[in-house]
Each structure stands twice: as structure tokens, then as C-alpha cells.
């Protein structure tokens, strides 16, 4: 599962698979215990690369490769600044160029190439587009809130449904118990013979069953499709563009055999060829062999290439 151990205590990771690895900004991993150990002593340097660190910079590792985690962190930070959306750009090409810029920055920061320059570039961009950044941040948060609301609604709906089903089951159980109790009471009190009472009870139980079945089958009327479109709503789609092409014409396959025509497999019997071939024994026919197959093959071979080629 995890083939890397913690670089400091090495053994603990294998012995304790539930131990989590933490990753910091320089991209190196440390298990939780070692992180504690490191900051207890007050020294805040990474074991492998000696960069000064803060305890808050450690995050639980989500990916097997710590460099991936490092990149994810950097990307988050960069995207906080570079948060333009596709409708901010007049053409697709410019949007793609912008995205490429962002990727370059992330790559440089992850692989420690040209860090100074990149940071300068970032600051410059930040200064230039300050209000745009703010606006986009606002829209982003609004969208996220809407999504969260939807999720919440869905969850609530699920909960409600679950409760309803439970209640139904309870009611059905109760009805059954009441029925049984009624039978016992009647057996005690009524004057009718026991067999008639039992028959009546059976009838009532059957009725109850059918009722329950019917209830299960009634679908709750709803007015929303699962994609969120209202049922009565007419959705107008864009007209599908018509593509005019040449129609395909089937032409049967023509094979040049350079010889006289061979009769079809099915005609061989009728034409009398099969009289001159060894008949198929019962063991052969079991596998699907017929004497026509051998005959056809022999005649095909006899006629193939018989005539000299033209010219």
C-alpha cells in the first residue's frame, strides 16, 4: 500500500498502517509522530532539505507521491490569485493562453525553477487585476453556496423518505398484531365455532396483505425529473444540423476466380454432384459436416485458376 516509510523513524509506518503521513511546502513527508517530535524540540527544519518550516504548514497527505500533494497546495494558492473564468475572455485562444500561463507558474513553483521571477510575476498580476480578482472571488463563493444548498435539500429529501418508509413498516406491523389480537379475542368471546372464526381471520389477513402490496406499488407523484427539469416543462433544444451525404449503395462482392463458375453449395445436391462423393457418416454429421461441403471445396479448387488470365 504505502511503500515509502517515514524518513525519520522509518519503521513506524510499516508497523502502524493507520499512521498518517503529513506533507509540507517543500514536498517531503513526515509521519504524525515525527512532526510532533520535530516541533517539541523547537527546531523547525525539514529533515531532507533543511528548509525552515512551521507546524501549521503540515497537511495530511492525500496522494501517494508527496510531490503531487505539494503541487496541489501550490495550485490552490495560485488559483486564488489567478481566478479568471472563461467568460472573462473574448476568445477561446486567449483563455487557453491564460491557462497555459497558470500552468507554467504552477510548474515552476513546484519544481523550484526560477522561483523569484515567478513570484514577481504573480505579485504584478495581483496588483494589476485587484478588483477583477475580488469580483471573481465573490461569484465563486456565491456559486459554492448554491451548490451546498442543493446538496442539503437532497439530503433532507432522502432523510424524509427514509423516515416515511420506516413509519409505513411500523404501521403494517401494528395492523398485523391487531389482527392477531382480534382473533384471540373473538375465540374467547364469540359463539361461533372455531373453524369459522379461523376462516374469517384468514380472509382478513389476506385483505391486509393485498392492501400492503397496493400501498407499496403506488408511486408517489412527483413533478421533477431526476435531472431537475420539471415534468410539464417543454424544453426547446437547438435544431440538429442536417448533414447531407451521398447515400450508401450496397454492391455485392465480386471475386475473380479465373475459371468457370462454380455451382452454389445448396444446389449441389439438386445438380447431382453429391452422388459421386462419399456420403457423410452419422459421426460426421454430428459436427455439422455434410458431404456437400467436401464436394463444393473440391469443385471450387478444380475450377479456380483454370482459365488463362486475359491479356
Amino acid at each position, binding site marked *: 500500500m504505502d511503500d515509502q516509510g517515514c524518513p525519520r523513524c522509518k519503521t513506524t509506518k510499516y508497523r502502524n498502517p493507520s499512521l498518517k503521513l503529513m506533507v509540507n511546502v517543500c514536498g517531503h513527508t513526515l509521519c504524525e509522530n515525527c512532526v510532533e517530535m520535530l516541533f517539541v524540540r523547537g527546531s523547525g527544519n525539514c529533515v531532507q532539505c533543511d528548509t525552515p518550516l512551521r507546524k501549521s504548514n503540515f497537511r495530511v497527505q492525500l496522494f501517494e507521491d508527496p510531490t503531487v500533494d505539494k503541487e496541489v497546495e501550490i495550485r490552490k494558492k495560485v488559483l486564488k490569485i489567478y481566478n479568471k473564468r472563461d467568460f472573462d475572455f473574448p476568445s477561446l485562444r486567449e483563455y487557453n493562453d491564460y491557462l497555459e500561463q497558470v500552468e507554467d507558474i504552477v510548474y515552476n513553483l513546484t519544481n523550484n525553477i526560477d522561483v523569484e521571477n515567478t513570484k514577481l510575476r504573480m505579485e504584478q498580476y495581483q496588483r494589476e487585476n485587484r478588483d477583477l480578482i475580488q469580483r471573481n472571488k465573490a461569484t465563486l463563493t456565491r456559486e459554492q453556496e448554491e451548490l451546498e444548498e442543493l446538496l442539503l435539500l437532497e439530503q433532507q429529501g432522502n432523510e424524509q423518505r427514509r423516515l416515511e418508509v420506516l413509519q409505513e413498516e411500523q404501521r403494517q406491523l401494528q395492523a398485523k398484531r391487531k389482527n392477531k389480537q382480534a382473533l384471540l379475542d373473538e375465540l374467547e368471546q364469540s359463539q361461533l365455532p372455531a373453524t369459522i372464526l379461523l376462516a374469517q381471520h384468514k380472509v382478513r389477513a389476506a385483505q391486509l396483505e393485498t392492501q400492503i402490496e397496493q400501498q407499496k406499488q403506488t408511486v408517489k407523484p412527483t413533478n421533477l425529473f431526476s435531472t431537475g427539469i420539471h415534468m410539464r416543462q417543454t424544453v426547446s433544444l437547438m435544431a440538429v444540423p442536417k448533414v447531407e451525404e451521398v447515400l450508401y449503395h450496397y454492391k455485392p462482392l465480386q*471475386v*475473380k*476466380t*479465373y*475459371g*468457370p*463458375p462454380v455451382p452454389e453449395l445448396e444446389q449441389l445436391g439438386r*445438380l*447431382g*454432384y453429391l*452422388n*459421386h*462423393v462419399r456420403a457423410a457418416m452419422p459421426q460426421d454429421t454430428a459436427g455439422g459436416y455434410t458431404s456437400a461441403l467436401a*464436394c463444393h*471445396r*473440391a*469443385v*471450387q*479448387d*478444380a*475450377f*479456380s*485458376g*483454370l*482459365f*488463362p488470365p486475359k491479356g
Partner: protein
Amino acid sequence: MFHNSSQRKYWIFKKEDELEHMRCKANQKFRNKILESGKPGLSESMFLERHEEDVLFRHYERRLLDFCNAFKPAMPKSVVGTAIMYFRRFYLNNSIMEYHPRIIMLTCAYLSCKVDEFNVSSTQFVGNLLQETPAGQERVLEQILEYELLLIQQLNFHLVVHNPYRPMEGLLIDLKTRYPTLDNPESLRKSADDFLTQAAMTDAGLMFPPSQIALTAILNSASRAGLSMETYLTECLGLREDKEALSKMYDSMRRMKTLLKKYELPKPEEVNAYKQRLERIHVEFSTSSNKRKRGYEEDGHVAKEPRLVEEEWTDEDLM
């Protein structure tokens, strides 16, 4: 089927001159190779001429046919035909002086068994070499396995060979069904079979489609028996209007018969003389270093120091 096979596309030639030309080229190529390598003590007279190569080729072809006929379990005719065709195609592009025929012929037979799905294990195959001890048979088997890939390469990986045996069966069936003029086509079978075996020993397989060879065999045996089959060609095969095609077909048949007539059995004195020279050439110029690693039996004696002395197994060990 033959009409879209590699045999028709790549291994059917129009004239005997073409074939002769290819064989001369192979001969020349070997000579140049040896002359360029600059080995001392060679002279032009050591090399075999074209007609001498031819004699040896026919001799080894006969040996191949005898080996296949004596094979246990009985080898079907198509396997024999395929083996002979491989042998012929191989020596179209390679010289006898470069690869010794006795190994190539066994490799051809071995490959042909595999390709034609005639299931024989390798030990069973070499078990048919009756003159050798089991150890000797092992050695032969190793050699066969070495040369197998070379053979396949020189055949340009075209391994499917269409033999004239099934077309002959087909023509006999057709005759019985559509040609009542001839009352007993079965009587033609034996003579046609002999014709086909003889034709396998000639270049007919490299120049004519197998169905034409089969038709020639049947027409030949009919004319031998004094029966006329002209109307079969015109009526049943629909060639009444197409005089050109008819004449072309007669022409090819005539050429095929000439080929068969030209064939002559190799004479033993000539064969022995050329064989000696061939052995010498192989001993001197053999490029395969594997032969030097093992010793071979010669006339039943096991060499005392097999690794140092290079003794080759001879033809007598085969039969």
C-alpha cells in the same frame, strides 16, 4: 483458394527462362560471395556449374520423394507435394553449394508436415531415418530445427501451397456429374495420378495453376486410353465461344507435357562425381560454425573425439 493465394501472386512464373535465370543468379551470388571472402586455395573449377547443380537437385528430389513415400505413418499426398514444392522454391533463390540439400530436404518435409497439419512429433519424424542410431537422429533433429527458420524466410513466409490433387478429385466429380459421354472416369484416375507425381518432379508447379495441371493430367490419361474429351472443354467449361482462351489452354497443356518429357533421371556416375565436389565445397566454405561443434557418425562408427574432428553424416545414413 488459389485465385487469391500467394502462390498465384508470387510463385507462378511465365517462362522457364525466368526460372533458369533465377537459378543462375543464385549460383553466381554464391560464387561472388566466396570469391570476395578471399579464401586461399580456391579455384573456379571447384564450383559447380548450372547443369551439375541441376543433376544433384534432381537426385535429392528423388531422395525426398522416396523418404516421404517410406514414411511411417503414411504421409498424405498433399504433404508430399508441399514438401517437394518447398524444396523447389528454396533452391530457386539459393544455390546448392551454399546449403546442403540433404538437410534442406528433411527440413522441407518437417515443415510441410506442420503446415499441412499432418501431426507427427519430432522424435517420430527422425525415427524414420532408419540408418541412424537414436543419438544420430537427435543430431539430425537439431540441424533440422536450425534450418527451419531459414527455410521459412527463403520461402518469403508464403507457406500455403495449392497442390493439384484436390482439383483432380474435383474434376473427376464434375466429369461424373456433367459429362455422361465418358462412362467411367474412374479408369482415368490411376494414370492421372502418375502424371501428377511426375509433374511434381518438374517445374510445372511453378508455372501453371494446379487446376490446369490436374486438367492436363486427366486429358492426357483420356487420350492414352483413346477417349476424346474435346466436348468437355467446350460444353461443360463454357469455352465454346472463347476460342482464344481455348487455344491458350491447349498451349499450356502442350508446354506442360513437354516439361514432363524433358525430365530425365539423374545418372548414378554423374551424381557421385558431383556429390564429391559438393562435399568438398561444403567442407571448405561452409559458413555455419555449428557443424564444427559436433561430431557425426560416419558409416556407423562413433567418432572418438567428436568435438575436434568434423565428420558429417552422409547420404547413406538417410536410407
